[in-house]
């Protein structure tokens, strides 16, 4: 069993989820409450990673973060390092790739919050941010949890993007799905099956526990 790869995948998934919750929540809020006419354009852009095949997305991410691109050059100047073939590069690619999996459920649950409650809060003099924190978020916990779980699971199983920008470095960019793929390619089907079963078992446990936890949250504080 490639424990190094499993640990790397867990770290990558957790970091991706954390970044997506931090950056995706304001974006989801804007999508849910903005009245801009061109909002649909932003919605379409957010959904785009669903359309592109992962290896294609990965190829363009590789070009976009390579040392010859403005972004890659800037990163090189600031840190002296390089984004491709690094954990940071992989993290950036994963965030892009899983963006719709966080933003869409969260935006949908924000939009489903009763406008009356939000406006009542505003009228009582509560600031927008406090209203968001104390009214919108508690009422959307389920959607936020769904977004987080989906992003985590999606990153755990991510393959094409990692293949294109990772470079398969043990402990840095060799994630568990890449490790399984290599085992299959080397005709080591037994090892591949073992790792796959472990991945399935782990993912099932995480997903089941989160669902169970969510259900309890739901029952103790009935909110809708």
């Amino acid at each position, binding site marked *: 069993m490639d424990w190094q790869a499993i640990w790397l995948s867990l770290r990558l998934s957790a970091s991706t989820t954390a970044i997506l919750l931090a950056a995706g929540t304001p974006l989801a809020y804007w999508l849910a409450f903005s009245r801009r006419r061109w909002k649909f354009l932003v919605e379409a852009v957010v959904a785009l990673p669903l359309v592109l095949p992962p290896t294609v997305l990965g*190829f363009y991410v590789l070009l976009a973060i390579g*040392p*010859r691109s403005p972004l890659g050059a800037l990163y090189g100047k600031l840190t002296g390092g*390089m984004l491709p*073939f690094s954990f940071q590069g992989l993290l950036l690619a994963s965030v892009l790739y899983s963006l719709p999996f966080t933003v869409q459920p969260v935006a949908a649950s924000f939009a489903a919050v009763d406008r009356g409650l939000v406006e009542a809060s505003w009228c009582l003099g509560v600031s927008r941010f406090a209203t968001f924190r104390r009214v919108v978020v508690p009422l959307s916990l389920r959607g936020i949890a769904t977004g987080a779980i989906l992003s985590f699971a999606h990153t755990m199983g991510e393959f094409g993007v990692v293949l294109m920008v990772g*470079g*398969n*470095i043990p402990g840095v960019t060799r994630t568990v799905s890449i490790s399984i793929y290599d085992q299959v*390619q080397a005709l080591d089907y037994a090892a591949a099956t073992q790792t796959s079963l472990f991945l399935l078992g782990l993912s099932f446990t995480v997903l089941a526990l989160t669902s169970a936890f969510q259900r309890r949250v739901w029952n103790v504080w009935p909110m809708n």
Partner: protein
Amino acid sequence: MLTRQLLPAALAGLAALLGGACNSRPVTGRLSIAAASDLQFALAEAGKQFHREYRHAEVAIDYGSSGNFYAQIRNGAPFDMFLSADVQYPRLLAQQGLARADSVFIYAAGRLAVWVPSFSSLDPSTALRDPTVRRIAIANPQHAPYGRAAEAALRHMGLYEALEKKLVLGENISQTLQFVQSGAADVGLVALSLAVAPAVRSQGRYWEVPLDAYPKMEQGGVILKDSAVAREFRAWLLAPAGRRLLKQYGFYLPGE
């Protein structure tokens, strides 16, 4: 001098004409080939030339990793022929009764080259030893024949231990080239057949790794579904026309 250059060409043309005339017996049908990615450019041209000679035969080619194709064929993928980047996979298929044992043939031997993109200031013949190089792309030695050759060559040159930390692994040899083309890796050890291909030739410079630095990379093929087209294509590939083409696209020929 002029005749010396023209004569072989004229003879080849004549042979092609005669060949075309002789082969007017109709070989019809469609041949679907699973081919290793280092054949990408050579085989596209081979398919075209073959079709020119055998008007009623058509060749459809899928490129990919030999290991993938091996797994797919074992699970019933409907290919007629498999041109692998090594000889192990075709032999395994024959052993398992998925192809006739006597249909395994060796059609070429792969050659390894150090490749740098044209925007790089590195000299391909010394690039591996250059201290400014941060990333070196090779194919994955765990399953790609060119990866194994690259690793063997680096060991032979006594560079492996020093460079191990700089290595990034491509899934197959085309992807390894992409890593370097994009500038993300500084140098790559790729198939000579890719480096000399018309689409890549102008994009970079290469230096061929001496043959004694790595074990010979014989490439084998196998007929999975026997047909007249399959047998004709194999014969064509192993005959002078096919050999010339493979040579032109950066392969060594069996028996060379």
